[in-house]
């Protein structure tokens, strides 16, 4: 299918590829240090490179009320000074070793990574362990880096009507859970973030018993263990690490609708989202059914929505369905429909609803389900070509409370999903009363 890069970029927050699969052929080793830090090693000896990632079980949904954006702000500040290193020296040292480093923050985790030649792993560990506890921040750091994150918000969100729309849709979706607050933060709260906010988050969440080390590439698990014990193993666990208990959503009793208008919108579209269960430890069956359901409905040219809205009729220029079970708390199942020229958003939305209704009546096409499962199995072969993807998958899963066993069971659980499971999942989730519908529109022309 010819995808719309522009539109999918605007919808990027919704996008989640079908979770790739663990495979029997993956060389994955798992162990735990005495201080509680978990370690995953993914071996791939084809190139002399290594990637180190450290994932903290702390994301924007763990932030205190009123300090939105502090998890991401702190991520930036971890590139400043420590007791041993000057501001900027961390990245400069990685570069000096021919490597690249960066970090990212999401609702449920914050992760830091470096990619370097395999023989530089020890130095990376020494530096990453250092900044787990020893950052030293100045008022000047706070001032300039706060400007940087505000410019980041400008670039990612305020300059993009699609991103501003997404923010409003999420806020409408989650009344009481922090997933309704953007990871980057609300501007008025970002402007007030200070040294105490950052350090308080750091001291609460950055400790070995709240972290996962994932090393992938040309490494020997025993050597990784020795190095990990030497650098991370000596850091004491934080006995006061809080449990991750978040305010949850109340039952949704009213359909929610919003219209977002912006003069910069060139291509209007409609989104629909429903609250949906996520993958839980030992309980991933529903999430597996929803994962396959999203492929059936909106996974490209052969999908049900494409058939109904792009081929049988020419209602839409683009259709998509998205589900990502990789979160700590309830996630969403989302649709997007970009109407064809001359089609209104109401017509597009009605066509979406009619297609969902007819899908609930006709059920799963057995051939399509077989093709999707074949792709899932083949992906286990292709995944072996990409150790970093495997490393990411383990890091993310462990950060949201899944276990290595859950990750390894996932392909089998996907493979075992039946047509009945999928229809039951669809009936459970697609209830208009628990939906949010958003229209992204051009500014109305005024006189």
């Amino acid at each position, binding site marked *: 299918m010819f995808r719309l890069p522009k539109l999918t970029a605007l919808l990027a927050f919704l996008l989640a590829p079908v979770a790739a699969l663990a495979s029997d052929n993956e060389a994955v080793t798992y162990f735990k240090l005495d201080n509680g830090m978990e370690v995953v090693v993914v071996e791939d000896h084809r190139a002399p490179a290594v990637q180190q990632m450290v994932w903290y079980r702390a994301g924007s949904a763990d932030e205190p009320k009123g300090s939105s954006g502090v998890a991401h702000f702190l991520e930036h500040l971890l590139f400043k000074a420590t007791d041993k290193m000057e501001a*900027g020296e961390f990245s*400069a040292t990685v570069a000096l070793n021919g490597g690249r480093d960066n970090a990212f923050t999401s609702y449920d985790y914050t992760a830091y990574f470096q*990619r370097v030649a395999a023989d530089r792993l020890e130095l990376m560990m020494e530096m990453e362990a250092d900044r787990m506890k020893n950052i030293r921040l100045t008022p000047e750091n706070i001032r300039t880096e706060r400007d940087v994150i505000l410019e*980041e918000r400008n670039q990612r969100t305020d300059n993009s009507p699609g991103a501003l729309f997404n923010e409003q849709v999420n806020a409408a979706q989650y009344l009481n859970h922090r997933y309704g607050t953007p990871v980057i933060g609300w501007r008025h709260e970002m402007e007030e973030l200070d040294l105490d906010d950052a350090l308080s988050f750091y001291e609460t969440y950055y400790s070995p018993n709240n972290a996962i080390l994932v090393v992938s590439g040309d490494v020997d698990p025993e050597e990784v263990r020795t190095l990990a014990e030497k650098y991370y193993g000596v850091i004491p666990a934080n006995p006061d690490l809080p449990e991750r208990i978040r305010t949850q959503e109340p039952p949704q009793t009213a359909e929610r609708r919003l219209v977002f208008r912006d003069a910069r919108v060139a291509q209007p579209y409609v989104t629909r989202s429903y609250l949906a269960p996520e993958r839980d430890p030992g309980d991933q069956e529903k999430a597996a059914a929803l994962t396959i359901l999203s492929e059936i409905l909106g996974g490209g040219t052969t999908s049900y929505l494409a058939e109904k809205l792009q081929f049988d009729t020419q209602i839409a220029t683009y259709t998509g369905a998205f589900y990502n079970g990789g979160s700590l708390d309830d996630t969403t199942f989302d649709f997007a429909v970009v109407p064809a020229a001359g089609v209104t958003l109401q017509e597009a939305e009605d066509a979406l609803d009619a297609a969902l209704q007819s899908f609930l009546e006709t059920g799963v096409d057995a051939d399509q389900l077989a093709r999707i499962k074949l792709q899932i199995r083949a992906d286990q072969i292709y995944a072996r070509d990409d150790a970093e993807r495997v490393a990411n998958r383990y890091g993310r899963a462990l950060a949201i409370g899944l276990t290595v066993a859950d990750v390894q069971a996932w392909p089998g659980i996907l493979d075992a999903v039946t047509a009945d499971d999928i229809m039951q999942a669809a009936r459970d989730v697609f209830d208009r009363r628990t939906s949010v519908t958003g229209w992204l529109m051009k500014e109305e022309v005024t006189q």
Partner: protein
Amino acid sequence: MRLIYALILTCLASLPARAEVDIQEVTSPGGLTAWLVEEPSIPFVALEIRFRGGASLDDPEKRGAINLMTALLEEGAADMDARAFAQAQEELATSFGFDVDRDAVSISARFLTENRDASIDLLRDALTQPRFDAEAIERVRGQVLSIIQSDQKDPNDIASETFARIAYGDHPYAYSINGTIDSVTALTRDDLIAAHKAVLARDRIYIGAVGDITPEELGPLLDDLLGALPETGAPMPPQANVTIPAGITVVDFPTPQSVALFGQPGIAQDDPDFFTALVLNQVLGGGGFESRLMDEVREKRGLTYGVYSYLASRDLANVYMGSVSSSNDRIAEAISVIREEWEKAAAEGLSEKELQDATTYITGAYPLRFDGNGPIANILVGMQMLGLPIDYIATRNDKVEAVTLDDVKRVADELLDPEGLHFVVVGQPVGLETTVGE
């Protein structure tokens, strides 16, 4: 801290990791040349095919035809309509990517060993017997028109299209590969067939294969896949005459953050000074956090989330480009800092330490690129299109390490043109006005 310092010294002393890539040149019985890296440990192959010329071969009256044609290659072929073709890919668990840019039409395929022959049959249908069904043309035309409309309201796209118009006169590089609303609306099926003939020809083809396949298997496979294509296509366009006037072009666009794209004439990849320019740019504005531009504009002043410069060395033109985004009330300061850094580097070159650090980074990062069958296949094709020798990978870092401080000073003086820089600023920048006519 001493310990870390000692470790760094150790690392500098050790040799950078070497990319162990054993490339074989394969000539098919039918005369096609491909570069192959055998990698039998995973039962699949990544195959990268490029046709030189790309969207620059568009007939000036039919802008966007090659883009639309490329998008339609997967929308129906031989006896399959679009959905049947997509289903066939799914049944084989193979994937084909069809892409086009200014210099090439690219096909990125991956297929399992067990489905190799059937996958090649399917890809051959797409390349040699695309249907260009009326229904598919209209559907994809609608998608392309939607993209063009969106680009017109995206500050990044407005900036790059504005810069291209300024820099490339009436050369194909001056135009968006998507075409315009009018040109795409007017395209006919015959235009798409002509576009197909213009680009997909054997005299401009470059092939890289990596994975579970032998040279003996690859040759006949390529003839089977590509043998039916015509021998020649459209003549290649000429080199662009790059004319970038000094100054600023402001494009008024109501958005809170201004997006700036800046540039000046660049340097060809086969220029003897290219690696010197690469080292120079690494320090000035290359990808990382530690470049001078990042340090001055982001780290010290907090004026942006990201500022970069890069050597955009393409087939038909060479420009030296950069980008930055800042709030409307701060973009003027960001631009003035960038100008100062450009001037400083032009006048003084780099320090010995900067040269060493950049050399260490560039040589150390090189082997890390070879991280998967698909990425390696891409590199193989890129090397062939640049006319590089098959043993280039083993010698490339030597060329970087040969760069001296004097080389850098000379090239900085010759290449960097702080007075000649042109900034395109899209937004509502405070204190900036257009200083040149387009």
